């Protein structure tokens, strides 16, 4: 050990440590501040994304086959349940179309161009996931060229799953709601109470043990029922209004007993994501 930490080695070790933490600090700061990473980093990522396709597509295809086989096993029981839902859905869809049309006419009447519910979507495939226990990130195969920008909300399986954390030319990184970083799950949401009032708030945390999102510091007196649907409320200007987040699973008190804490069961399982939809608010 004496020999190992000779003067020269020690100096080199210290220099490496300084460079290492300098780079990490720098890139985290850059990531938080800039809307796109530096060009050279984007370039590296695009090359990597291209090469990843060569490995990822066959592997994903194998997974697709395995999924179809297991899907076939459950097809009978699922089909019976789904048939019931389809008949209900047709009614809802027609009503939805009528309302959308009416909404459009009314907006035209008011000379309103686009509101917070008007958004377009970009679909992307998930290529890989960060092999790390601390960063819950996915790499998707669409980037700036498809119109994706930083902080856009990402949906999958009918519900919100996270937001775009980094955009390159042809691929981007999505930070899941289950990530522990401060910014990943701060979405502005609304819950409709049973007495006609609605509760606005933000997602303040994620409970990994029970797989629940937490909406903290709720002081509203509106009555919220278990099972109430939670959607985004469009505040903040980047996330459209009306993206489905999940259902209220329970309501508790915060640590001091002053405010309520609402626990939300997310609509999507964060560990089974293959296709995502990125939502972009229309200007």
């Amino acid at each position, binding site marked *: 050990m004496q020999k190992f930490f000779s003067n020269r080695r020690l100096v080199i070790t210290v220099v*490496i440590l300084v*460079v*290492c*933490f*300098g*780079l*990490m*600090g*720098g*890139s*985290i700061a850059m*990531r938080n501040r800039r809307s796109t*990473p530096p060009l050279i*980093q984007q370039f*590296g*990522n695009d090359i*990597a*994304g291209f*090469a*990843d396709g*060569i*490995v*990822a597509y066959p*592997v*994903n295809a194998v*997974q697709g086959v395995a999924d179809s086989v297991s899907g076939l096993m459950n097809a009978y029981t699922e089909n019976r349940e789904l048939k019931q839902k389809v008949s209900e859905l047709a009614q809802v869809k027609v009503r939805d179309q009528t309302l959308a049309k009416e909404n459009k006419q009314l907006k035209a009447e008011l000379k309103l161009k686009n509101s917070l519910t008007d958004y377009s979507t970009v679909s992307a495939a*998930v*290529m*890989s*996931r*960060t*092999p*790390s*226990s*601390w*960063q*819950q*990130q*996915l*790499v998707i195969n669409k980037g700036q060229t498809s119109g994706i920008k930083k902080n856009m909300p990402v949906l999958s399986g009918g519900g919100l799953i996270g937001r775009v*954390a*980094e955009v390159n030319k042809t691929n981007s*990184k999505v930070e899941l709601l289950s990530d*522990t*970083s401060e910014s990943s799950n701060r979405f502005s949401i609304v819950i409709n109470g049973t007495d006609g009032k609605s509760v606005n708030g933000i997602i303040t945390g994620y409970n*990994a*043990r029970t*797989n629940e999102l937490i909406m903290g510091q709720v002081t509203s007196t509106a009555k919220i029922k278990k099972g109430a649907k939670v959607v985004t409320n469009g505040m903040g200007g980047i996330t459209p209004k009306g993206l489905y987040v999940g259902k209220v699973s329970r309501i508790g008190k915060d640590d001091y007993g002053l405010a309520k804490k609402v626990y939300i069961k997310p609509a999507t*399982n*964060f*560990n*089974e*994501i293959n296709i995502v939809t990125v939502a972009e608010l229309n200007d």
Partner: protein
Amino acid sequence: MYRLSRLRYVFPLGLFAALFLDGSLSKIFAGFFFHYPYAMVSQLVIVWLVCSYFFEGDIQIPLIGFSVVAGIFCDLYYSGILGLFMFLYPMVVGLTKLLAKYITSSFPMIVLVFLIDLTVFELFNYWAYAAVGIAKVGLGGFLLDTLLPTLLLNLVYLLFLYFPLQKLITWAADIERR
């Protein structure tokens, strides 16, 4: 001579396959790898680096250089935070070289070196990420929920891949005779 052997194709190809498979496997088996409270970190790259070092024979693969490239790739593509893996992978190679001086290259010893490498790798990874505020679990939680499952998963990788990789790398290490 590295430049004359088949390893000059096989090694980089294997390294990059390992890199991409780490991400792809993490995506496909996410339900298994990241089943609360455990988190398994797939590290085929370290399996490949360690096996290459022990099976390369007389051929000296420029492992440090390749591991830096692999590290930069990991930083850019997977974590998005530059500066950690580009030093950790070369460190693992250095550690393997250091430990190899004291052991015989037998199967159990190589497994032991691999496990030490992985433990040091994960510890440094945890320490650095905790210092910059990405990892937010206590040391106890890390040891039990991340390190232990990670060691198990990668041990399974190594046990399955040891003999195939030994065959492959020794075959590729033969200098082509024309």
